[in-house]
């Protein structure tokens, strides 16, 4: 069994001054998977994502994409390999309309005009945007719609792997359920790694869950086992206790 994992991190470290936000992460993700990444605030999840896409240069360690070492590649080169990311802070073209946003994401695939238009309309459909929403400038969208717009951009760019940092932050339950659908669409052709705090969301999506704590991988298992795991409970509950303490 020598299948090459689509994405692998080996001993990845990122230091900010004295703080090691990512402190020796080893991670293997197989093609086609939906992997969930959880961990308390400040665990280093977002930083790990940024290291994977070279928005931050890792202090040490390696990232392998389909066995190929990404060292020294610029962010846009990594994107061209098919690694798409939605950062925690939404990043869309606020002054351009939604259709243009999605079109710009699809444009990189050099499809030809007709094909590209088809991809754009299909994507708008997949994220459930009607004509009125599609011709609205992205800045005027509601919070949830912005998230979907960005997910639509990822969809249209047809990535091999998509990294999603808190795609449901601030959504209602209904909206979260819709996001689950969109991500499943994305997963039809791409591997997905998603950072989330919402347990229901994770239960609906993920096959395997990786727990990050203080920049290190704590455990990696199925959701059921993770929920039953004492240490994981301690981290989350311990934090809750501390918080209760601080408030009380």
């Amino acid at each position, binding site marked *: 069994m020598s299948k090459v994992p689509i994405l692998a991190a080996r001993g990845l470290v990122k230091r900010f001054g004295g703080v090691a936000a990512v402190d020796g992460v080893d991670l293997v993700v197989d093609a086609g998977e939906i992997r969930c990444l959880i961990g308390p605030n400040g665990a280093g999840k977002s930083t790990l994502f940024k290291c994977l896409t070279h928005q931050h240069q890792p202090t040490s360690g390696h990232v392998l994409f389909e066995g190929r070492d990404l060292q020294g590649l610029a962010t846009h080169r990594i994107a061209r390999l098919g690694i798409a990311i939605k950062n925690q802070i939404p*990043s869309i073209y606020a002054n351009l309309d939604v259709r243009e946003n999605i079109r710009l994401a699809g444009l990189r695939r050099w499809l030809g005009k007709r094909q590209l238009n088809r991809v754009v309309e299909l994507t708008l459909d997949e994220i459930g945007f009607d004509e009125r929403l599609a011709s609205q400038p992205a800045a005027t969208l509601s919070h949830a719609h912005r998230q979907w717009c960005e997910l639509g951009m990822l969809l249209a760019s047809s990535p091999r792997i998509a990294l999603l940092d808190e795609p449901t932050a601030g959504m209602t339950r209904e909206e979260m359920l819709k996001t689950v659908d969109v991500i499943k669409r994305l997963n039809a052709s791409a591997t997905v790694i998603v950072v989330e705090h919402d347990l229901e969301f994770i239960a609906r999506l993920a096959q395997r869950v990786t727990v990050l704590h203080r920049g290190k991988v704590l455990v990696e298992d199925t959701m059921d086992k993770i929920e039953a795991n004492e240490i994981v409970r301690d981290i989350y509950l311990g934090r809750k206790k501390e918080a209760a303490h601080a408030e009380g």
Partner: protein
Amino acid sequence: MVRQVKQAFFPVALVLFAALGPFILEPFDLVNLSAFSAMAIAALGLAFVWGTLGILNLGHCTFFGLGAYAYAIAVSNLGDSTLAALIGIALAVAFSLVLGYFLFFSRLGDVYLGVITLCVTLIFYSFMTSTADPSFHIGPVPLGGFNGITAVPSLNMPGDPQAFLSTEATFSICLLSLAGAYVLLSLLRSSDAGRIMTAIRESELRSELLGYDIRFYKLVGFAVSAAMAGLGGALYTAVMGYVSPNVFDLSQASQFVLWVIAGGLGAFVGPVVASFGFQLLSSQLGANQVFNTELIFGATIILFVMLAPQGLQPMLLGLSSLKFPHRFGILRRKEKPA
């Protein structure tokens, strides 16, 4: 469709003017308008690189001046004015690529970029003023220091350096070049590459994460704007018959920026109209010696910037009109999507 008709209106008007102008206007006006058009071509370059790509190049006149000097030197040495103009464009582009490499590959912020580009032009200014010594010459052409190069031959027929073009023909060529520059830049802006450039202005991070090499697009856009400025500089020198270090000085630098601000950032027609308006104004003022132009330009820049303290910034981001901000200049008439 409506948009296309509207878009075509301006270049068509220019072409008509190029054809009819010689029959209506005095030679003196023709020369003036030729020079204004040459300047306007360069201004379009800045309108493009600043409005579409968000690159604030305060030293746009560097490229203008390089085109102007290259034309003056080449035409005196080679005779053929077409070749000389091409050399002017090529030199401006070559320099923009070198400068752009340092600017964009260092990922300098807006403000740093503005400062560095302005400093570059000032250095050219002080270099050119220090070439009074006869030892500074290229071929038989002395650089001339503060006085610059005088008696520069005007445009001639391609391949026949002795056949100088008339004032009327030169006028038509300048206006047609302006129309051509306008059409070219408009097409570029609405092409896929142009839309990517707009996207880069909107969000560099997003564009990078989508796989676009922002440094490459910026370099290309910068070179295009330099080509326009180089062409403008070459035509200007051909029309005026001389070039001096003043093409690199602060007031020259400020003029381009002023026209683009006044004409509306993100627009093309506006800057052209503004450049004609302000040049007309300053030639009137200059002739009457009432005020010096720096005073007027300085006050105008301050007024434009201050009267829209919040308005300018969204304008810089192109917020005021959606998709692609085509604004018809000073009128600020917003287009409805066709």
